């Protein structure tokens, strides 16, 4: 067993990512993710202390436009894509309290 990532770690990460895994999936994902992280371990050989991180390839500045109203999205078109809608709003099952 590779120590880079444990089965419990994968189960925890799946919960964070809102995914449900079967026992078999947990096993295969754990070994595959461990392989990938093991490959990424070659970065450990680098001396990176003095290096600044790069988040983005462009030297980005904030972009602002004139505050003038333009064309707006069509509400009907956006609502039409949703699985469930009520009173012009997206509808979901209960988010709080006891669902029973």
């Amino acid at each position, binding site marked *: 067993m590779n120590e880079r*990532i444990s089965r419990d*770690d*994968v189960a925890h*990460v*799946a919960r*964070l*990512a*809102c*995914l*449900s*895994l079967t026992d078999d999936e947990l096993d295969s*994902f754990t070994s*595959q*993710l461990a*392989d*990938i*992280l093991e*490959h*990424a*371990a*070659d*970065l450990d050989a*680098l001396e*990176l202390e003095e*290096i*600044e*991180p*790069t*988040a*983005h*390839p*462009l030297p*980005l500045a904030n*972009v602002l*436009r004139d505050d003038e109203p333009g064309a707006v*999205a*069509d509400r009907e*078109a*956006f609502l*039409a*894509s*949703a*699985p*469930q809608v009520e009173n012009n709003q*997206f509808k*979901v*099952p*209960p*988010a709080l309290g006891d*669902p*029973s």
Partner: protein
Amino acid sequence: MNAREIPSAIRNGETTAKEVLETHLKVIQNREEEIHAFNLVMEEEARNEAERIDALAAKGEDPGPLTGIPIAVKDNVCTQGVPTTCSSKILDGWRPPYDATIIERLRDAGAVIVGKTNLDEFAMGASTENSAFGPTRNPLDTTRVPGGSSGGSAAAVAAGFAPLAIGSDTGGSIRQPAALCGVVGVKPTYGRVSRYGLVAFASSLDQIGPFAETVADAALLLEVISGHDPLDTTSIPEPPLDLSTALTQGVEGLRIGVIDELSGGAIEGISDDVLGCLEDAVQALTSAGAIVERTSVPSTVYGLSAYYVIAPAEASSNLARYDGVRFGPRVDAKTTSEMMVATRTAGFGDEVKRRIMLGTYALSAGYYDAYYGKSQKVRTLIMNDFANAYKKYDLLLSPTAPTTAFPLGDKTEDPLQMYLQDICTISSNLAGHPAMSVPFGEGTDGLPVGIQVLASAMDEHTMFRAGAVLEASNQGKS
């Protein structure tokens, strides 16, 4: 007929957009069942568009630089009212309420969109086998993959379904399939082409670009889709590219460095026949007057590891939006959170789940510095190394992919082996630089090899000079 010849033939009355379209639809009808390049062939829409263009041309108006050219578009680019699936079940049935900027530009230029092409789900993969709708096959040998993730677009051009296609490239997803299918594929400078309406995978790496049969056709398409777009905050404020002079300028006096690490040096797994083609390409450029020598870009060795932390990290965040609330199918459950888990679990394929979890892990407390923070620093090293190389060289050169097209099923059980397909292409995405793949020679299996020309940010012009010379030399050989 090359793409470039179609507009003038229509303007001169030698043919019509309708006729050109029908010719291509016939080719699609003959081979699409076998190839599966498309998630959707837009026959009716395409016929209407062709008629509109013919009507304009009949009135003596110019419908634009792409007049009547059929084009295939990767199915992760939003088309208003037309299903856009990203080859994922989680977007099944979704019809975008707006067009991507490049779709508007293509229409304004007179192009005829013939269909939406298959891809690895959410553009995650190097073989187009990770599609929820089944794999695409390589038109040159249907037992082989077309590469990926833009495999449907590459296959569409290689099969003659359309002379032009649109792809997206996050780690090599245009260049690698172009190499495996024997067509030209270009990843422009990050920010050169608007990403508005491109479904996001890894936002700091994604870039839209062209596929074409020829370098000149790729240039024509890139000219149309490039240029500033106020709807994309990362769009570079520059006018569209003009590449016309690049195609005939040659490479006399250009200094070109062959990246040692990717050409039989530090990185293993580049096959001998591919390296042989690279040597021939070096000869061709040298005979054309370029000064070519081997050079080291040391941190390219670490590109793959950095990429497979950074891209999944960004993806895990971008793909949080697929939760069954605002679009796509929903799996019902008693509570919102149970509904979200059920919807995402049913909707995403294995590779997407793998990357979401990898990214979530790399960003999670306790591991952020070890993986994500470190990878971002490696990104700086790669940008520094390229900057040093471009002080000495106008262009860099390497193979595009380590091998020719591999058999279907060959790497599906071993994600890491699949990731290694991107070893030569990834560093350009991390740096935001342009790179293109041009077919050059073939492997021992008779399948095409692609040579990658890399340039510094914003220098597509010089890159196309070398691309055109390689193409001319390759055609001279056969």
